[in-house]
């Protein structure tokens, strides 16, 4: 079980259902219940991401031929 940090909600079947519904996916109560443990793993992995430098920008469209690393 992943502990919730400050300001984070615990992952519950109802939260899973509500978040999925925002994307138009209607999950049954049973399916949402089954997803909770997997969601805790998934979001737990994301919580391990450390702090980053304030200047670091997203690398959403990566062009490695435009960095200093290309020949």
């Amino acid at each position, binding site marked *: 079980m992943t502990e919730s940090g400050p300001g984070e909600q615990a*992952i519950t079947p109802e939260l*899973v259902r509500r*978040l*999925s519904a*925002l*994307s*138009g*996916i209607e*999950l049954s109560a049973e*399916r949402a219940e089954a*997803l909770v443990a*997997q*969601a805790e*793993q*998934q*979001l*737990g*992995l*994301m919580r*391990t*991401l*450390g702090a*980053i*430098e304030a200047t*670091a*920008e*997203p*690398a*959403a*469209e*990566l*062009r*490695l*031929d435009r*960095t*200093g*690393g*290309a*020949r």
Partner: protein
Amino acid sequence: VSEPLRTNLADLPLLDVAAKIAAKELSPVDLTTAALDRLAAVEPELNAFVTVLAETAMAQARAAEADILRGEYRGLLHGIPVSVKDLFNTRGVRTSGGSRVLAENVPDEDATVVARLSEAGAILIGKNNMLEFAYAAVHPDYGPTKNPWALDRSTSGSSSGSGAAVAAGVGFGSMGSDTGGSIRLPAAFCGIVGLKPTYGRVSRNGGVALSWSCDHMGPMTRTVADNAAMLAAIAGADPKDSTSGSVPVPDYLAALHTDLTGVRVGISSAYRTPAEPAVQAAVEEAIAELERLGATILDVELPPPSEAVPALIGLITSEATEFHLPWLRTRPEDYSPAVRERLELGLLIPATDYLHAQRVRRQLIDRALPVFSTVDVVVMPTSPTAATPLEGDLSASDEADPELLAAAINFTGPFDLIGFPALSIPCGFTPSGLPVGLQLVAAPYEEAKLYAIAHAYEQATNWVDRLPTALGDLLGK
């Protein structure tokens, strides 16, 4: 482990048969016949193909033969039978992505890599089985691909059919895709060579997407030089892929050599463990061999998997879910249980987490680049394990298992995140006769360095000469 037995035409390296074709000593018709005969002998047991294109392949072979006899030889791939993973669009030929969702999908245009292979004169013999949408699970409609080294073992994935086909002598190369390790892990498990090129080196156009940020397309072959020949045919800028790079394609084959004097090989402590002892021993011996060949071994520190893999999984999970959302809304039951669960998990990741992962990606690139001013390559195991039993394999699970997935891509995933090129080559066997993969990583667009160093190692060892242990049983049936 079997003794070297590469005497059958189907088992020869691509460049060996290419030389015979160029010298008009071998007909593409005879070569394609040999490849299709081998396919018929090992299928459906291996389950490496979802579509076989025997008729069109023979027609292409006859056309290639006529061209070559007229003096219109196009180069090293002319008349060479190859296959592609079934996520590359093929005009008029079903492209399923290993899924039920796209089971009836027939594209009207070739993927860029398919078009380039065709322009080079390669002959497409079929489309390879794969994990569903390249997302770490077998769809029951297709079933698992078996490993030619041990039929009860996994090929890993997701380019599972490509790895098994090349290892089993069905064609002389295959195109795979790699978002977390899907070219390199099957290459390692099947004892072949697999390249995940630099992000931007090979066009992604016409490949069914898993994660736009991290998808890479690359060749899988039996030798390093064969791999270089295939990359030369498919690499280069493509206006149909906005992330395609404009760096000129060098002559990879001309860069191959056997002397590693002056070459600097890095070892990064974060990429030494956890690996099973037999894998670790083979990798340590490979490093010793590189040193004997003249390389200098240096300690370096790449950004560790513990930072890179969670960011990669965050990107893949979010992007895959966005791509699949229309189908997830309307036909969720058509996905395998594990892929459906992974897609549903993607609904739960906040946009802030996704963007944080993209910022981590940028920061890790900035940290990794300076490492390659001190070394030419960094080496490590491709996978923490050799081929795992099919029963109980991650790809057979009905659950998403994010932590198990993260562990499986521990050594490969970081380079999908940062986009640097990475090559897996055979470097030995476990005591039970399963192949072990050595991964070499270089700076962006330095595939020629990877090939040069890997080729020198390959020439000094005989790992690629060995035929898969189970192949004899398959051919005897």
